[in-house]
Each structure stands twice: as C-alpha cells, then as structure tokens.
C-alpha cells in the first residue's frame, strides 16, 4: 500500500474547501510530514461541485483513487452522496447536515433526494452528521463552518489536534482567529458523538 492517509473534502465552490485543505497541509508541515493534495480551481469553482484530495504522508501523486479514501468530509449532504464511492467500505464520513439544491433542480424541475433518503443511502458508512451552520454561529460566525467541519473530523485523522489548531490560527484572517479557534473546538466536541 502507498502508506498515506487519504482524505477527500467535497462541497460547493465558495464553501471554503481550499482553506480546509491548506489547514491540513500546514498541520502536516508542523508535524514534519509529507503531504500531497489536488483541488478544483478556475471556472469549476463558480457554484459547482468541488473536491480536494489530501494525502497525509503522501509521497507520490496527488489523486486518491475511487474506493481508496480513508475519510470523507462533505460540506453538503448531496455532495457526500455524489462522492461516496471514493470512500473505503465502512469508513467515516463527516457531513454537514445541510443540502443546497443545484439551481437546475428548480429551473428544470429535476428530482432531488431528500435528507432522509441521502442518509439512508449512506448508512453503510460510519456517518457523523454535523449541524455546521448552527455550530459556526455559536462560535461567532457562520463563515467558520469549514473549520467546524475540520474540528468535527479531527479525531478521525492521524494528526494531533494541537497541530490542527495551530494551523487554523496561522491560516485564517487575523481578526477571526478567536472565532475559528472556538469553531474548531466546538466542531471537535460535536464530532466525538454521533
């Protein structure tokens, strides 16, 4: 095996998946470990489905093969379903319990699965549903949802929480350090239970 711990972060362009990936990268640097990552840039970011591949201790290419991810973090319920085949069987999926409907659902009257259906379809995985909006608001800003999600997934990663928290502090805008540090801790607590 390649020996890396592979995390896929998915969501919708603009939700902050890139900052989440940068935080993981910084945490690896703090621990002196190698890392590889790949992400979506360019036009695909305009409200489209986006994915960030992160390979902790990765030394080869940046891409995770479908069916090989050790952990999936999704900022949206529907995106969790879309990328679920990337995850190894029975592994953990940390999901923001919120679903933004693609605009085409309204303009073209497409069927979209409801929250219950998505959760049912993902039951074979170790699901951790997080009310990121609520928790981020509690931390001080709904914009800190991505950090809440990282906190919630932190106990499932082979990285020390101190390194992750330090990485959060280094990378978020200076004015928001306190809020994001709180968001990380609140997320971390929420991720502990199911």
């Amino acid at each position, binding site marked *: 095996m390649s020996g890396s711990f592979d995390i896929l972060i998915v969501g919708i362009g603009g939700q902050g998946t890139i900052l989440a990936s940068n935080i993981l990268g910084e945490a690896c640097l703090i621990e002196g470990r190698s890392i590889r990552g790949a992400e979506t*840039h360019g036009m695909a970011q305009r409200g489209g489905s986006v994915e960030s591949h992160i390979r902790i201790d990765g030394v080869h290419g940046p891409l995770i093969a479908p069916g090989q991810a050790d952990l999936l973090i999704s900022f949206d319920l529907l995106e969790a379903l879309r990328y679920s085949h990337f995850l190894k069987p029975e592994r953990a999926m940390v999901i923001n319990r919120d679903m933004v409907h693609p605009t085409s659902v309204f303009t073209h009257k497409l069927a979209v699965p409801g929250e219950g259906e998505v959760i049912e379809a993902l039951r074979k995985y170790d699901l951790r549903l997080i009310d990121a909006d609520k928790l981020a608001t509690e931390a001080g800003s709904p914009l800190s949802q991505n950090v809440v999600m990282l906190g919630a997934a932190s106990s499932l990663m082979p990285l020390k929480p101190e390194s992750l928290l330090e990485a959060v502090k280094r990378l978020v805008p200076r004015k928001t350090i306190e809020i994001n540090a709180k968001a990380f801790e609140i997320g971390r607590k929420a991720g502990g239970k199911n």
Partner: protein
Amino acid sequence: MERKYLLGNEAIAHACLESGVDFVCGYPGTPSSEVIDTLRAQPERPFYLEWSVNEKVALENALAAAWCGVRALCTMKHVGLNVAADPLMTSAYTGVTGGLVIMSADDPFAHSSQNEQDTRCYAHFARVPCLDPSGVQEAHDLIPKAFELSEEFGLPVIFRPTTRICHSKGDVGLGPVVKSTRKGEFKKDPRQYVVIPAHTRILHKKLNEKQPAIRKRLVELGLNRYEIRGKTAIIASGIGISYVEELLPAGVSLMRISAYPIDEEWLAGFVQQHEKVLVIEELAPVVEEVVRQVAGTVPVLGKKNGYAPYEGELSPSAVAVILEKAGFIPANPYPPVVPVPDIPARPPILCAGCLHRSAFYAIKKVYKDAIYPSDIGCYTLGIQLGVVDTTICMGASITVASGIAHSGEPRDVICTIGDSTFLHTGIQGLLNAVYNGANITVVILDNRITAMTGHQPNPNTGLTSCGVESPPVSLDALCRACGVTFVETIDPYDVTGMTALLQEAKKRSGVKVIIAKQMCVIMARRSGVKRGKYIVDAETCNGCGTCVRFGCPAIEFSNEKARITDLCFGCAVCARLCPTGAIVREGRK
C-alpha cells in the same frame, strides 16, 4: 531550506524568484494564472511584470527582453500557445541571450479548456527544449534548470506543467530568493534579429545543429533517467511518473522522462535491455513514437496498440487499468467502483447578481429565433440559458457571427464577447465585420475585469497587474474607430433599457454594438458595494415561476412559492421581472 505547503503554481512562481527572474508577462488562462498572480502579489518586485493583452503580445515582449540579455518568463495556457505560435516558431531561429522560459500549461481532460492539445508537440515542432515535471517539487526544481538551459543553448525553453501539477499541492523545499543585477541591453545584430530569407536560412541550420547536444545534455543533467530492475520496463513521463511510482510492481524497470528532446541512442540502450516496454504518458504519444523508432524487435505497448488512451487525464486508477491490460500486476490494484447514479449534476453557474444573466435574458427576449455565437469567459455558462450556440477559441464570436451572417443563414445573428476577450483577439473580428459589411449585433459583456481566471486586471480595468493606475480603454471609441456607427452602452441590470436598445439594433442593418457594462459581482462584493437583499412576499407570489426560469442560484422554489436565499446580492433584476410585484427589497414593503 524552508518547506511550505504550496500550490504547484505558487511553487513555480517561487522558483522564478529563486532564479532571479527579471521580466514576467503572460495572459491568464486556467491552469496557468496563479504563477503571475503570485508574483504580482509579492511585497517586493525587483522585476518587471505585466499582464499582456494576449499571448502573442506577451511572448513577443518576453522574447525582446531575453534578446536584451535578461531572464524572462512568459506564462499562458496550452491554447494560448496557439495564439503565440507565430513568434514561437521563429524565436527558435533568432534564439535568445537571456534565459526565456515559456510556461504553457496543459489541461488533460479539459477541466477548463476547449481542447486537450499537447504542448510537447509544439516544442518538437519548434525544435526547442521542453521540461515536463512529474510533481510539484520537480516543477519547482526544473525552473532554474529551464533558465540555465535556455542560456546555455541560446534557445527559448518550454516549461509544460499540467492541471494536476499547477493545481496540486505538496510540501515543497524552497531555496533563497535571488535579486538579479542584470540590466537589459540590446546589441544590434541584424543577422540574428532580422529574419529576412538570407538570414533565416542560416539560422534554421544553426537551430538544427544544436539538437544533438541538447539531447545529450538533458540526460547528463539527470532530467531523463532510469533504474534497471528486471526484464520488463515502464517508461513514464510527466505526472504519469508519480502514478506509476505508486503502482510499480517489483522487478520492473522504470524510466522517467521529464525533458525533451529524448536522446535516441541512450533510449535504445535502455529499451534493448528489456523484453517488453510499456509507455505511460498523458495525451499525445510523444515518448511512445521515439521509443518505437528505437525499439527494434522489443514489443512496445502504448497508445498506438490500444493499451492506453489518447485522450483524457491519467490517474492512479487509470494507470492501474493500463498496467493490468499490459500484463503488469500493479502494487495496488485499485478495483473500479461505481458512483451512485442519478444525482442531479451541480455544474458551475453564473453567480447570483451576475451581469451576464440579465444581458442574456434581454438578448433572448428580443432575439427569439436567432443564432448566438459566443466566446470564452464566465459567460460561456450562458449555454445553460440557451443563448450560446458556438464557442471555439478566444475572440471567435464576432468572426463566427459574421461568417454565419455572410453564409446566407436567414436568421438574425447576435454574438456575445467579454471585455477581456474582445481586447485579446476580438477587435480584429469587429474590424473585419465592419469592413466587409456583415449584418450582425455584437454585445460586449463588459464587467471591467478578466473574471473567469481569477479577476486579473486588463486594459479596461484602470489598473495594471501591479495595481498602478492606467487609462482605461474606451470600448465605445474603439468600436467607433473600427467604423461602427451604432454603439450604445447600458447597464444590463436595466432589463427594460437593454431590451429597448436591442430592439433598436434589430431594426438596423450593418454591425451594431451594445456594451452591457456592470461590475463583476464578485468584484463588487470585494470592493464593499452593498445593495441590500431582496425577498419574496409569500402572500403576493402566485408561483408563476418567472423568477425561477431566470436561473439565478439565489432563487429556490418549494411548496409552489419562490424564495430568495442568502446568495442574493441585490441586483433587483428578478424584482423587475416578477409580474405580480412579489419580490421586494428586504425591509421595505
């Protein structure tokens, strides 16, 4: 040595700083744009930097700087090199004295592009060296070598990363930034820089004579290298190397190709020590063709006999499939898995409050049964609204419009082009259409910036790449100078006004230009513009769906009522469209 977690393009930019680059230019294009965006954001810039108006303009600027003995970097995406192909081909003849690195970023799988062309073919065509990194660290490490090779051989060097290098990240070891002391000086030498036939014939011969030494040097530098491990071998290039390394079975030899041209003699020595050779590379069979030339009786497996695809991008799982097909047992099998079917797609979409959506709405309303040529930019997403019928390359909306109009097609032709694309290669099409009497309407979607690639300024913005004020070009005056008499500028949020202008244009013959001008909504948000949000009054809403069909991502529809989400930026276009007046500004009744 400092280690940082960097995007490929950021690592490339840093390597340029380590190389003491003197002159930087280019035209934005995914996946290349962040190199210049990183360099222009440096707090200290002891080098000249510009966003040029197109790739041909950029390359000619960079070439001239390199003629003056300074180190120049010119960046673009692969299709930009088509635009710059004219100076490229002859720059190999004139050569350079300062290092000239042309970064042309390829996009296998066309993540953000109109095709999947392979820049390595251009390097072969122009007979210039080409470096093709296998990962982010190597991309960084190859940049100083590219400048050195360029200076050693007096030739431009093409640097060809792909999307999975430019937009990958890794922990990268960085060297110290070097401040250059070079100063440009043009030494007159007409035999070198004036390519009249008598000179160019000699220059061509000189270029050809450089080739054997280049091939040898690339091997000496260790850019192309191998390890013998058994009787069978894999030859991989670019990012393909990293995928092969992840899957390499024990006892299989590996050759890594990161530079072109490949030394045939050296390659033959490797191939002929094996009983079977598999070639793994993205896009064109550039390596495979050379391997086949030298393989003799050794079987070569690759694209030409169906083991690997010609199109798309490689990945660990794609390489695992190729290995198995070719009789190698991958170290990790990566069995195929099936995605969950029938999930509604979430393609990129024009932003809530985007000026293009309202412009397209008005166009479709007035020109119901028309042909809609369009161009390359965010507004290509107008395909979702049914107002983009053609897109081929930068600047090809006005030209395609005039071609269709002159073909005898009886329907009206109305084309759309963004401000940056118009200034890139659109002006010539307009000039040609007026000169030759085309009967078309041109809508310039003017958002004051090059938005799609990450909001780079252009001559229309009023700022240079480094934030220095510059006189914004007058699109109106430019169009009039081309001979257009009907040129009108309007804010497309004013759908009524825009509709009236389009109706006026429709009545007239000849070339009509409407400039739909409004700031890109992302820029508006960044610069602190606040317009307030709009809401749907549920009692007044009759559920007719007019606003939903407008296609704004801020408008949802459930329980037979429309609803406006937090994405609203207050453009108010939906409020103007609502037949019952149910959409009102938040806080007002």
